[in-house]
C-alpha cells in the first residue's frame, strides 16, 4: 500500500514538475495513438458502414471476419509489420522500421477491425430503422452509407473511443516495430514495460497512473463533446 501511495506521489511529482522526458513520452504516445485512431476511422468507418448497410454476396462472411479480427493478437500484428518493414521485407526500402510511423501502422492494423466491427453494428441497427424509407426514396448505396454515418455520428464517437482505448494501452506490437528507442520511439506503455523489467516498479506504476489519467481525460473530453453536441443538435 505504501509503495502504491509512493507511486502516486511520484506520478503527481512527474506531472507537476513537467519532467521533459515524461512530456516527450506522453507527446509521442498521443501522436502515435491519435494518428492511428484517425487512420483506423478513415478506413474502418466506411468499411463498417458498407457491411452494415448494404447487401452483397459474402456480407455475412465479411461481418464474421470483422468480428474475429477484433481479437487480433498484438504480437502477431507486430510480427507481421516487422517482417513487412524489415530490410528483407516488401516495405524494407522505405526505412520505416523502428520509427513512430511503424508504430502507427501496427496500431492502425489493430484498431481498424474494432472500428469497422462496431461501426457495422451501429449502422446495421440504424439502417433497420431507415431501410424502408431509403427503399421508397430509392437512395443509392453511396448516399445510404454517407447518410447513415452522418446520422450515427454521436454513437460513432464511442467507437473511436474504443479504438483509442485499444491503441493507447497497446504494447506488444509497438515494442516490436518501434524498438522502444529512447527519444525516438519510446511511448508510455513501452516505458512501463522497460521500467518494470528493470525493477523500477514505483516509476512503472507512476507512469501507469499517468497513462490512466490521460485515457480518462481523453474519454471525458470526447464524451462531454458528444453530450454537448447531441444536446445542441437535438434541442
Amino acid at each position: 500500500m505504501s509503495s502504491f501511495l509512493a507511486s502516486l506521489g511520484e506520478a503527481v511529482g512527474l506531472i507537476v514538475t513537467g519532467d521533459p522526458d515524461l512530456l516527450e513520452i506522453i507527446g509521442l504516445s498521443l501522436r502515435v495513438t491519435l494518428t492511428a485512431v484517425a487512420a483506423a476511422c478513415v478506413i474502418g468507418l466506411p468499411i463498417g458502414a458498407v457491411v452494415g448497410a448494404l447487401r452483397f454476396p459474402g456480407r455475412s462472411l465479411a461481418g464474421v471476419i470483422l468480428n474475429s479480427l477484433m481479437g487480433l493478437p498484438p504480437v502477431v500484428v507486430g510480427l507481421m509489420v516487422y517482417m513487412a518493414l524489415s530490410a528483407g521485407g516488401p516495405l524494407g526500402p522505405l526505412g520505416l522500421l523502428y520509427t513512430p510511423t511503424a508504430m502507427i501502422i501496427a496500431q492502425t492494423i489493430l484498431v481498424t477491425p474494432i472500428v469497422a466491427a462496431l461501426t457495422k453494428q451501429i449502422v446495421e441497427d440504424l439502417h433497420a430503422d431507415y431501410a424502408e424509407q431509403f427503399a421508397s426514396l430509392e437512395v443509392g448505396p453511396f448516399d445510404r452509407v454517407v447518410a447513415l454515418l452522418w446520422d450515427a455520428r454521436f454513437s460513432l464517437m464511442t467507437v473511436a473511443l474504443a479504438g483509442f482505448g485499444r491503441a493507447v494501452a497497446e504494447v506488444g506490437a509497438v515494442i516490436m516495430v518501434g524498438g522502444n528507442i529512447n527519444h525516438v520511439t519510446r511511448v508510455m506503455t513501452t516505458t512501463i514495460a522497460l521500467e518494470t523489467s528493470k525493477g523500477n516498479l514505483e516509476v512503472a506504476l507512476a507512469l501507469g497512473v499517468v497513462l490512466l489519467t490521460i485515457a480518462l481525460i481523453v474519454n471525458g473530453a470526447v464524451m462531454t463533446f458528444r453530450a454537448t453536441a447531441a444536446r445542441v443538435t437535438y434541442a
Partner: protein
Amino acid sequence: MLETEFNVRSPAPGWREETQRAASPEVLLETRALCFDAGGRRLIDRIDIDIRAGRRTMIMGANGTGKSLLLRLLHGLIPPTRGEVLWRGRPLDRGGRHAQAMVFQRPVMLRRSAIANLRFALAVRGFTGSERTTRETEALQRAQLEGLAARQARVLSAGEQQRLAVARALSCAPRILFLDEPTASLDPVSTHAVEQLIREAHADGVTIVLATHDVGQARRLGDDLVFMHAGRVVETGRVSDVLNAPRSEAARAWLEGRLYLDSSS
C-alpha cells in the same frame, strides 16, 4: 351496373367477378395475379386490381390480412413471388418508382432537423439549388411546420412527424401516394391535419392509395374501396356502396364487428 373508376379484374375464386370500369382516367398501376409467399404461406393471393389516375382508393380489412404488404408490393419495396405490378402498362421500374411515394404507419424520420429530412429526400430525388429550397419551404408550409424547421424531426410530436412525412413524400412530386395507416396512432386533431394534407394532395392531382382500419376515414377520404381478407381482394366498389351494403360475408362481418373465419383463411 355500378360504375366506378376502380376495377378488380379477377378476384379470388368464390367471389363474384366484378367488371366495373369507367371510361376515363388512365390506369396508373395494375397488378396481374399478384402473389406473395413467405414462410411457406401465401400472404397475397392472386390479386388483380387497377388503380386509376386521380382516384382515392382505400384498402381495408382486418389485421394481418395483407393491406400493408399489398402497398409495399404496389410500391415495389418487395418483389412479388408471382404475378406482376405494371406502371402505366409496363413492368414497374425505376422510372415508375420515381413517380411514387409512400408514407408509413410509423413515420421514418432521419436523425436530423425537419428541414434536413426534406432536403435529404429532395436531394436523392435529384432536386437541387433554388428548386430544392422552394420545395423545402412549400413542404414546411404545407405541413404547418415552418416554426419547427430547425427542430430535430425525432423530437416532434407524433402528429407533427406524420405531417412532415406526408409533406416530405409530396415534396418529391409523386403521381401516386401510398399511405399505410398514416393516422393509426394519432389523436383526432392530428388525424384531421393529416387528412387535410391528403385532400390537398388529391386536389393537386395526386392519386391516393391508403390502407386504413378507420371506416370514418374511408368515408371522408375515399372514392373507391378494396376490401381484403386472408390475402385476397374479396370486394371492391365505391366506398359508400361497400360500407353501406357489403356483399361479401368477410366485409359484412368486419363492419359489424363479428369474428369471421372462413376455411381458406
